[in-house]
């Protein structure tokens, strides 16, 4: 199929917005228009709430939305990971039932992957799902679950077969959170925030038609989710941007953002807050100290080069050139930048780096940076796992021999706490 020209699309979307965009609609009402017209997700397939456009044409549409100040579909939090996963692996019925409410923002989603006994080794998870008639019965515990306390649905990865090798015994489900068998407890982190949850499942129930993909095919489905998670991680630094504008849509959008984004409010600090380094150093009077300047220089340079690397990847995409290694490095680069930023902040703050809260530099932000940065090297795939992935997939180095893949999961060594 030939793609329409950018100019034609631009005119079409302009005309559509002129006719339909109305800031006095309710947020849900407006987004239903986006969903039914396909303009909300132009790069999605035309039969599933999109237009089947390329990334480049999607940009054209987005630019027109920005120009008109029009609000887009709900895209924050974990929901887009769920959407991408369902688009690729969901049944027709699942897509029809679940996708629209993801895009309108009516449903919030969470990701039930990690467990106390399996973090990096996700495929070693031990939450159990057993079929009982037409219902899967789920038992086990998940952890690091953002937004579980106000989510309607969870993407659940559970073990359905213990007698096959670990990756082949997993299945992917859509779990309703609001049910008696699911208990959500906040998890307090070392930086004092509690943006994650523990989720306990005790005979929780999943209807049989909420299995995504094939029984035993859950790992393939989860890989789609994880691929999108890695891609999204780079964008986290910009989250929490306030929307301006008058009208009901904007008001409700701001409320939604405040609610959905609450767990992410420390993420900029986790990424190092490079923007605060020079102001902190000026205030403390340490900008002239050559030792401090070296630390600052390292952080500023890494940040700049990391931005340019992301731009390079984008430029190659836009020019239709094959992706180079620069596109796979974002997450590891973000860790390196964050750690350099933390060192620079500590150097720039001087003895005030002892302090936290309102007594500390930048209204406590420096302290929060120092206590949040360790998370960036763990969340969404540790630096060590990232290096393995880069070494194996980008550089083509051989995989490490393993003794947990060709044997039934039942016989694999596990953590003492995991059943």
């Amino acid at each position, binding site marked *: 199929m030939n793609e329409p020209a950018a100019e034609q699309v631009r005119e079409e979307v302009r005309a559509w917005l002129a006719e339909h965009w109305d800031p006095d609609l309710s947020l849900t009402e407006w987004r239903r228009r986006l969903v039914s017209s396909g303009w909300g997700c132009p790069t999605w397939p035309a039969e599933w709430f999109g237009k089947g456009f390329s990334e480049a044409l999607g940009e054209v549409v987005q630019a027109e939305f920005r120009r008109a100040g029009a609000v887009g579909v709900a895209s924050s939090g974990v929901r887009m990971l769920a959407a991408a996963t369902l688009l690729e692996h969901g049944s027709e019925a699942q897509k029809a039932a679940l996708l629209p409410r993801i895009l309108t923002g009516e449903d919030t989603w969470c990701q039930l992957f990690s467990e106390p006994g399996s973090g990096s080794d996700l495929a070693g998870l031990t939450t159990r799902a057993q079929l009982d008639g037409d219902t899967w019965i789920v038992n086990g515990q998940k952890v690091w679950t953002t937004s579980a306390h106000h989510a309607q649905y969870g993407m659940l990865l559970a073990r359905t077969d213990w007698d096959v090798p670990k990756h082949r015994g997993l299945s992917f489900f859509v779990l309703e959170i609001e049910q008696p068998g699911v208990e959500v407890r906040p998890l307090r982190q070392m930086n004092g925030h509690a943006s994650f949850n523990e989720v306990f499942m005790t005979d929780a129930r999943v209807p049989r038609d909420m299995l995504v993909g094939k029984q035993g095919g859950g790992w393939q489905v989860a890989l789609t989710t994880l691929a999108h998670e890695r891609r999204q991680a780079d964008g986290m630094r910009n989250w929490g941007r306030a929307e301006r504008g008058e009208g009901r849509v904007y008001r409700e959008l701001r409320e939604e953002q405040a609610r959905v984004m609450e767990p992410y409010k420390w993420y900029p600090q986790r990424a190092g807050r490079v923007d605060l380094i020079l102001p902190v150093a000026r205030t403390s009077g340490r900008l002239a100290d050559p030792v401090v300047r070296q630390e600052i220089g390292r952080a500023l340079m890494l940040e700049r080069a990391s931005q340019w*690397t992301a731009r390079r990847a984008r430029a190659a995409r836009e020019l239709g050139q094959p992706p180079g290694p620069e596109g796979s490095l974002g997450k590891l680069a973000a860790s390196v930048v964050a750690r350099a930023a933390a060192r620079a902040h500590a150097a720039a703050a001087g003895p005030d780096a002892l302090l936290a809260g309102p007594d500390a530099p930048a209204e406590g932000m420096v302290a929060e940076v120092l206590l949040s940065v360790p998370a960036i090297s763990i969340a969404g795939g540790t630096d060590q796992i990232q290096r393995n992935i880069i070494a194996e997939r980008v550089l083509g180095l051989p995989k490490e021999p393993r003794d947990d893949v060709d044997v039934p999961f039942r016989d694999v060594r596990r953590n003492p706490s995991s059943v």
Partner: protein
Amino acid sequence: MSQLGFSDEQRQFRDFVARFFREQSPVTRARESMSSEAGYDPELWRRLGGELGLTGVHVPEAYGGQGFGAVELGIVLEEMGRVVYCGPYFGSAVLATYALLEGATAAQQERWLPPLAAADIIGSLALAEPGGGWEAGIVQASARKSAGRWRLEGTKSYVLDGRTADLFIIAAREPGSAGPQAVSLFAVQAGAPGLEVEPLQTVDATRPLSRLRLSGVDAELLGEPGAAEPVLRRVLDRAAVALASEMVGGAQALLDSAVSYAKLRVQFGRLIGSFQAIKHKCADMLLAVELAKSAAYGAAEAAAREASVDELREAAALAKALGAEAFLQAAADTIQIHGGSGFTWENDTHLYFKRARGSEVLLGTPAAFRDRFVEYVSAREVAHE
């Protein structure tokens, strides 16, 4: 305008240049050149000029060049860096050529740029002095005017290709003056009376350096008197960008070598590339190399579009510091991954290691550029407030 992307033409140009150096100037050629009498391969050098036009890739067509810009120059240097090309390109086509482009009168440019662009002559910029670096402020050599002639006195050091250069561009100051002002650039031809060239022993044998002793050397003033400081800034920023390109080429070649060795070498019954200790080193190397490439490409774009002085100096400092660090990291890690064989003369890695050590210091250390980068970024932030 492409932001950190290469056009199809530029990609074709890179393929062409890469193939030329891979086939005509593999690392064995650098080994031969560095131990030869001339210290470079005159035949290959002439081909870079006349046949390929690479020595004048960034020189305007009016002066016999190709009329391209800093991005194409960066591509040439990156591909040279991959093979540790041993010849006067950086000293002549980059430093000396930029000095003439930025600081000479039209008549002087007409006289010297065509032979430089054609690689008919070799040029060399003599700025640094013993113990002093690449900035106008350190210049102590003096230029005295008497009876309408300029006479130079003093000592220049770390002069690239001193032994083989035909034309020296020498920075000297008004006698008794101090600071970066009152410094001018002069042209001196090789063999001029009172000019003594002493070759220096260098860590990197592929980049020969000399000391120049100037005893009343007859010199021609380039451009205006006392105007060298801003000229040198522009020259050195552009040269830093070019050197960064060369460094990322070298770093990429090292990474390739380390990775292919890790896919061949067996220890403890396994390919060593399957050990995480090796994998993680390689992944870190890739990250450093890609960040440095982004910096070099972004800086070359800034130089090519004649960005503001502030923007270019910032980008140049970034590219030079990150390029040097990535190159050194890649060189040290590649030796480590090769193990004992990586420390032998026979293994090519040491040629890159030495080039990395030299390039780290040439034009200024990463620490100096980091310091400047902070100064520039901070000044821009304050100005915007």
